[in-house]
């Protein structure tokens, strides 16, 4: 009987102790040359992606970490563990711009209590590498009490989880934000910065705004829709996938990898797909699930070598000979030709697809959820390997035509161009 009880105890205790033993001890080391993240006492440079799916591809491409924005889907931690990826676990802190009132003590306290509960539940997960407390709580805000909440959470983490550093993530660098975080949040170890166009000045700004601790580039990629040029009717001009891929590569090399003093690594945005002004702006995947050339770029950044098979790359797109920066105005039912030039990247067979959508004109920012428009039916008249002639809709309005090109293993590139239809 005693023997059986012993066996039972071993079985009950084993899974728990196993998880505990796998919990990483993550710390930050400061030396004369700068800061370094240590995972179980080994240097750990974050080669990360903001991702909720396609984890296997992150691993295959040479990445070692993913960033998620909230702790609601804790199964993602298990998925990451399966692919030996660490997780920067976001603690969702409500944003003033979405209606949260930081002057309301009851709401503030309840948010904190709820978060504390989640922290206790997840702190020993073996894939956890650091806590991301809040995402862009500073965007369009004016109630600085939010930093007290961030500090209270960070302080709690310091108390219950000495194994993982704390980070808060801000929307772009600004001296006021740096000042506030230094003043109100001494328990924050790392500054997370979401920088798109402003990544080109991030290295210098982090220093001139006075941030003395290390930082992680928690979201980066191509210039965001909020930074884009707009045409005469306010439609945002999206660069082609090829242009965006080149921009990603340059930014990683020049601004992320180059700062080996303070930057502990980065998370590219977005290893997946989402609607943000268009369906293809930030996503490194298409809504079909196909990877774009941005995924190839990340492999080159992380591994130093291109994948054996690369996606084609659309560099230019034109409508009736006018480039993608112009205002394209047509009359109802007009026949229009879309030209696109691309780099085959040694692909023998390429497949093309064309899709038409109404313009969305979304004014939402900060990654807030946007509704995807429904695809429109249109009449295709003629197609070659780099042109497609079609009839614009028989209805006045604002539209956007997309061209997709993919190889036989679905690696893809996409470009789009907005246009307007008027009456005669």
């Amino acid at each position: 009987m005693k023997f059986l009880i012993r066996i039972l105890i071993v079985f009950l205790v084993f899974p728990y102790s196993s998880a505990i033993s796998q919990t990483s001890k993550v710390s930050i080391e400061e030396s004369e040359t700068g800061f370094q993240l240590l995972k179980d006492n080994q240097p750990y440079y974050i080669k990360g992606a903001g991702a909720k799916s396609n984890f296997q591809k992150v691993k295959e491409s040479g990445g070692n970490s993913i960033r998620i924005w909230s702790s609601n889907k804790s199964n993602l931690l298990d998925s990451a563990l399966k692919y030996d990826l660490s997780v920067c676990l976001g603690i969702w802190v409500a944003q003033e711009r979405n209606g949260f009132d930081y002057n309301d003590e009851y709401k503030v306290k309840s948010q904190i209590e709820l978060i504390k509960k989640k922290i206790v539940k997840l702190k020993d997960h073996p894939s956890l590498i650091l806590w991301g407390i809040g995402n862009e709580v500073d965007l369009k805000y004016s109630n600085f009490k939010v930093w007290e909440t961030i500090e209270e959470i960070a302080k709690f983490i310091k108390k219950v989880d000495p194994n993982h550093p704390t980070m808060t993530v801000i929307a772009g660098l600004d001296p006021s934000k740096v000042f506030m975080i230094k003043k109100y949040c001494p328990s924050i170890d790392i500054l997370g910065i979401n920088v798109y166009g402003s990544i080109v000045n991030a290295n210098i700004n982090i220093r001139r705004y006075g941030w003395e601790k290390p930082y992680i580039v928690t979201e980066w990629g191509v210039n965001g829709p909020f930074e884009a040029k707009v045409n005469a009717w306010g439609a945002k001009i999206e660069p082609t996938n090829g242009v965006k891929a080149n921009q990603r590569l340059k930014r990683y090399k020049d601004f992320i990898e180059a700062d080996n003093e303070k930057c502990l690594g980065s998370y590219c945005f977005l290893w997946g797909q989402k609607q943000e002004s268009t369906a293809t702006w930030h996503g490194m995947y298409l809504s079909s699930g196909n990877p774009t050339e941005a995924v190839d770029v990340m492999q080159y950044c992380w591994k130093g070598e291109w994948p054996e098979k690369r996606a084609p790359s659309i560099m230019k797109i034109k409508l009736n000979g006018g480039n993608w920066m112009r205002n394209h105005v047509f009359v109802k039912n007009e026949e229009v030709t879309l030209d696109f030039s691309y780099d085959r990247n040694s692909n023998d067979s390429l497949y093309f697809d064309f899709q038409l959508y109404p313009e969305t004109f979304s004014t939402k920012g900060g990654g807030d959820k946007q509704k995807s428009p429904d695809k429109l039916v249109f009449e295709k008249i003629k197609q070659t390997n780099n042109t497609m002639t079609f009839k614009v809709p028989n209805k006045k309005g604002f539209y956007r035509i997309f061209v997709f090109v993919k190889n036989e293993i679905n690696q893809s590139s996409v470009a789009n161009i907005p246009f307007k239809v008027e009456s005669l």
Partner: protein
Amino acid sequence: MKNLNRYILVWSVLLLFSCDSMKTVNLYDSVEKKEDPFLTFPYKDIFTDSDKTGVFGMKAHPCKEIVFDAINNFSGKDHLHIKWNKTKDCKWLGFGFKWGDFKSKDLSPIFENSAIEFMIRSNAGEFSTLPILFSLVDYSGKQCFSKVNILGMEDGVVDQKWRKVVIPLPTFKYEKKGVNLSNIKELRVQLMKKGDFHLDDIKIVPYSYSYVVSSETFTKKFNTLPITLGNEKKYWWGVNENYSSNFKFTSNSNSINSNESNISKDFLSELDVFSSLSVDYSSQKEDKKWNSFGFPFNKWELADLSEIYSTSALSFKIISEKVPKMKIIFISYLGKPRNISKIISEENIFKIDEKTFEIIIPIKSVKNYDLINWSNMKELRFKILESSIFEAVDFNLVEFKGNPNKPKN
């Protein structure tokens, strides 16, 4: 003896009259006893049993199922079992309580010190948040919302055991929604996402709510001029000699040695202030991008300059042979545009002596000055546009009522 009798009689009569006018006097001031409004509130029960309290919105629906369940009640003969899945096809999901047979209820006397309390258990799983919104609906159809949150849950959790939860009435923001608290018709429940819960014994209970909603705004309103700007080092950015020597704080400038100031350097240092900013910038140097500095209007909080901006000018001094090409940017926390800027031009420069210039930039001379949100100003930023060596000092917002485009006149 007669006299004595008379005397006694007179005194007796006097005593009798005086007794009549005697009143009881309390030792302490009397406290008027207020009746507890909760005790007289007649509609405490919202849901007890199906035969005693009414529920509406129970009709069969593809996305929700609301039934009276008689198994495992918390109390009485039955309870509510609610089960739903809010898919894209079902727009609004919910139900409500007739609460006192829809009689008009005046919640105002009990609002601050009462709560809705009920018992809840889940069919499966453990929850710290519930996808359920409660709304108080008045007779004009206006409604205000609240929900159960972790502070109102017994042990911070809802699970398969009957748990008590409370929603304090003050968490219903009725004023914002224009709800008439003295004329409440019903309690409505809106179901979000999906769930499967059992509810019982829904009632109004006394509750001590100690949380406040403050009105702090982090805004300082400026009504008078001049305003001294940038006099504390700790609020500046852009000056960091570890990375660039383009900008340095100095306490031995020409300005501080002049008669204009009699504050000792040591005193300045102790106060975290300085006498001037020394600039040695070259567009040829490696750190040429290190060309900006700035400071806030109000300690990085919001500065409300809306009352004074139109009659003010930015003023500061440049100590140098010549005034460098420099862009000045006014930045707001909110609004669009977020910033406005001006490059110093000839009409902004006033020569004080051989090496000192006063720069005056009337706000009205800055392009789009009327579009920026002056109620929420953040900072002043300076960008050096050419190689230059100079000192900058005495930043102020001063009164200016002249021609903004010709401040010299």
